[in-house]
């Protein structure tokens, strides 16, 4: 049983989707229990796997027992790099499913089973992407997540959502094709699709390693992943797609999709091409870091220009993707940048989840889509607002939230790698985040047009009435509980950043290999 955990993790949501297809059409009430059960099974399996990894190290799992290295064996591999990512996927998808109960009801009821089928298939895809050890399977799974997310995005009632989905389909397809081309080149050169076999062949055979075909393959794969993760200037599809879709879709996609793509990039860098080859042989590190700097600055500035809450958050994601790409490419000798990037995958996913939850609640409950609609919301919805403040502080990078520590690691990497422009960009983006969020706090605290004159006017002095309406506007516990859990997780991840980062760092090759030949 325990041996089968990786397969259970991936397949549980898929079977859930089939079950809904069979039974959910007739009676919509069975949908949620099925969704919840299968997600909980996956989450349990993910935690079990992570636990095994802590104890015994890497788990290799061969689907259906096909082990031949050059055959069609589908290998799943869970190691220190992705163990925490699958737990993150489990936690996030479960929380969002809770959050989605009411939201989905608000959609056309006809669509409820469809929504959940897509939802579960998306989860299958995400788990699969994270643990597959096969370059071609990765493509297939990326396509599964993409196709399901096109559907989820287009499901909203607004026409803009449909438009955004089409835009996303086009961009996503181009990205996937790039990736596939890259894998094709690699297959030609190495004759295998298994990541670790490719790496072994590349390492053994210097001629292959240094051939232009492999470089081109890397470039194609990188471009494909960058489109998927909305790395500036390839981000065009993201803001509309995530802000015009239903709230629960946004909560599911925004935290996970881009972050998983970043993970895929790091996985490809470590497990296919090898850091030494990338940083030393190619030496593109400076170029990519500069691209990341541009992404960070551009994302922050664009976020500053937005009036809509969700759009603003979307551009912040673009900036955060810049953080992670830059961090992964810092090529500092102790790999703090890479550790920071991986840690930020977890931390940013939680922060984004928290903020998108709140944005979803606000747009539903008080019909606040623009920043200016938030007048006085602190008083009306204290719990939601407190979680928002926490998420915002994490985005700004105030200790002890996880956002502070990811910045700490990334900046450390920047200083040790000598990339001062990256350090400056991170600080700039923190400042912009501070401005952005305190602009919101101000409106939420004051109201848009504060009364003239002093606060101690006659009408104000009754303290008791001030606090009376508290909690009346607060939404139901089914929505606030996932939100509060997320907020608590942000702080916990911050406080336990030490063990987490140590855990992640076990996945990296020993530093000496890379240090020795650093330019």
């Amino acid at each position, binding site marked *: 049983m325990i041996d089968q955990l990786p397969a259970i993790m991936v397949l549980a949501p898929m079977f859930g989707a089939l079950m809904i297809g069979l039974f959910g059409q007739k009676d919509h009430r069975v949908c949620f229990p099925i969704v919840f059960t299968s997600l909980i099974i996956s989450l349990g399996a993910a935690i079990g796997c992570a636990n095994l990894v802590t104890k015994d190290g890497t788990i290799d799992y061969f689907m259906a027992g096909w082990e031949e290295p050059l055959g069609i064996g589908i290998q799943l591999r869970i190691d220190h790099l992705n163990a925490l990512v699958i737990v993150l996927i489990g936690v996030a998808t479960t929380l969002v499913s809770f959050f989605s109960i009411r939201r989905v009801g608000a959609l056309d009821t006809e669509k409820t089973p469809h929504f959940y089928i897509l939802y579960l298939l998306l989860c299958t895809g995400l788990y699969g992407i994270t643990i597959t050890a096969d370059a071609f399977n990765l493509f297939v799974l990326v396509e599964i997540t993409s196709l399901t997310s096109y559907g989820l995005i287009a499901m909203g009632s607004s026409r803009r959502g449909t438009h955004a989905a089409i835009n996303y389909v086009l961009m996503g397809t181009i990205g996937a094709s790039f990736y596939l081309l890259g894998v094709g080149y690699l297959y030609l050169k190495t004759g295998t699709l298994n990541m670790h076999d490719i790496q072994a062949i590349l390492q053994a055979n210097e001629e292959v390693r240094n051939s232009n075909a492999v470089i081109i393959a890397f470039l194609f794969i990188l471009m494909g992943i960058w489109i998927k993760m909305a790395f500036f200037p390839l981000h065009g599809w993201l803001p509309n797609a995530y802000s015009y879709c239903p709230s629960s879709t946004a909560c599911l996609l925004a935290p996970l999709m881009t972050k998983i793509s970043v993970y895929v990039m790091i996985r490809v860098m470590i497990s296919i091409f090898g850091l030494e080859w990338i940083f030393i042989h190619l030496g593109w590190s400076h170029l990519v870091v500069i691209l990341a700097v541009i992404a960070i600055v551009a994302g922050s500035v664009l976020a500053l220009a937005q009036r809509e809450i969700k759009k603003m958050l979307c551009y912040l994601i673009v900036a955060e993707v810049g953080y992670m790409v830059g961090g992964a490419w810092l090529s500092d000798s102790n790999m703090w940048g890479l550790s920071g990037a991986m840690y930020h995958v977890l931390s940013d996913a939680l922060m984004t989840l928290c903020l998108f939850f709140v944005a979803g609640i606000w747009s539903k409950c008080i019909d606040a889509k623009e920043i200016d609609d938030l007048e006085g919301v602190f008083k009306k919805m204290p719990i939601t607002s407190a979680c928002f403040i926490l998420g915002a*502080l994490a985005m*700004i*990078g*105030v*200790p*002890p939230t996880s956002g502070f*520590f990811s*910045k*700490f*690691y990334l*900046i*450390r990497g920047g*200083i*040790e790698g000598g990339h001062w422009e990256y*350090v400056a960009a991170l*600080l700039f983006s*923190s*400042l912009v985040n*501070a*401005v952005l969020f*305190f602009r919101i706090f*101000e409106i939420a*605290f*004051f*109201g848009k047009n*504060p*009364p*003239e*004159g*002093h*606060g*101690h006017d006659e009408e*104000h*002095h*009754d*303290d*008791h009435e*001030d*606090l009376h309406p508290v909690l009346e506007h607060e939404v139901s516990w089914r929505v606030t509980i996932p939100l509060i859990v997320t907020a608590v997780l942000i702080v916990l991840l*911050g*406080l336990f*950043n*030490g*063990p*987490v*980062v*140590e855990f992640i760092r076990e996945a990296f090759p020993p530093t000496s290999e890379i240090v020795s030949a650093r330019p």
Partner: protein
Amino acid sequence: MENTVTSLLPVLACLASLLAVPLIVLFRKEPFLREMSTFAAGILKFTFVLMMLPIILDGKTIVHTFTDGIGGINVPIMFRVDGLGMLFALVASSLWILTSLYAIGYMRGLKEHSQTRFFAFFALSLSATLGVAFAGNLLTLYLFYEMLSLSTWPLVTHHQDKEARTGGRTYLSYLLGTSIAFAIPAIIFTFVKADGDLSFAGEAILAGQDLGYWPALFLLLGFAFGFSKAGMMPFHSWLPGAMVAPTPVSALLHAVAVVKVGVFCVIRVITGVFGVEFFKDLSVNLVLCWIAAFTVLVSSLIALSQDNLKRRLAFSTIGQLSYIVLGVALATQHAVAGSMMHIAMHAFGKITLFFCAGAIFVAYGKKYISQLDGLGRKMPFTFGAFAIGAMSVTGLPPTGGLLSKIYLVWGAAEAHQIALLCVYLISSILNGAYFFPIVYRAFFKPAPEAEIATPGVKEAPLACVLPLSITAVGSVLLFFFPGLLLELTNLMTGAK
């Protein structure tokens, strides 16, 4: 090896006011219970601080480390109490009790709105202040420093009107902006340089490191401007902006807690991160000296032209903070001792002045100095206390301000910086020039005719007048009994 004692006391002292927050919110409909919980927390906090005092005077330091906390960068959340932290904690926690009393009188006297929020955030910001005082490493220091910036924002913007909004915006953009832009890189740079050590215990973090002139200078300025609560020019304008807050906030936070946290951080950086000796060897200290000296003179000159009483006090505070920075930047034994003492001396003097400004506003609704003619005869206690506070800040006997100023001047002479010594002297004259006309106006100028009709004494409520009298007496007592302060500063400077 340092003589350390492990104890939970610093954590408890820090938590005492944090635990009051839920109580305050719980009793939001019972003003009496609400304010009693504030008091109880204040007294509890002060007791915890006092309980640590004998251990500190024994020459030991108290340490408590949360090892499981922030371990990845191997920097735990660490509390550590030494002479300097003790001194600051004593000042802050004792004055909080008085300020609570004063706040009750002030807030009720003016029938302010949202008093629950006010008291809750006040308690929160005091936790942050003690957290800074007892921080055992740079990371913990920074954690509480930011917590203080954030928890005081609702206090500054308490009135929720346009003016408060502008003030609050300036407040946060300066405090948060500088700390993100300058302090974080400085901390991380230190971290990288010192190979993962950020603790203040033992040797100074960077002492003996191979650090060139320019990196050292940038690091120093990063810290000095990053901790912009110290109000060094050009990052000072948040303080006058923050004067839109209710007066108890200006009194405790913007004369004692917040601003002193700024200078406290600068002192910590110079003594704990660089180490005084190493700091002097790097010869970057003169740059900081002159920035501080410039701030002292310019802010005093600006103060002369302010008609709004609280703004004048704010600019005076900016000048006095730079006294402290200048003292520690001189890096001689007596100058550093003087700086530390000045934290306490200035706190008592300036809080008295702010209390007076608030009392005048509560009793007569007057904010401007030009309106104060003849008011001294109606509010003899208030203006008497004002005079004592002004003497202390100017540095006249028999008030505590004289002692710290003597040490500072002595320190400047020790460093052979005659020009900087003159800065101290000139600015003392300027201090006198902007304070005593107010006293003169209040006592000797005739009141405007409209007000002559109602002669007789009419003071602010007792809850306002009592605290300000106590702090004024405190300023005088500090002149006669400075023993405790001297002992605490000697612990830090190593003098016998």
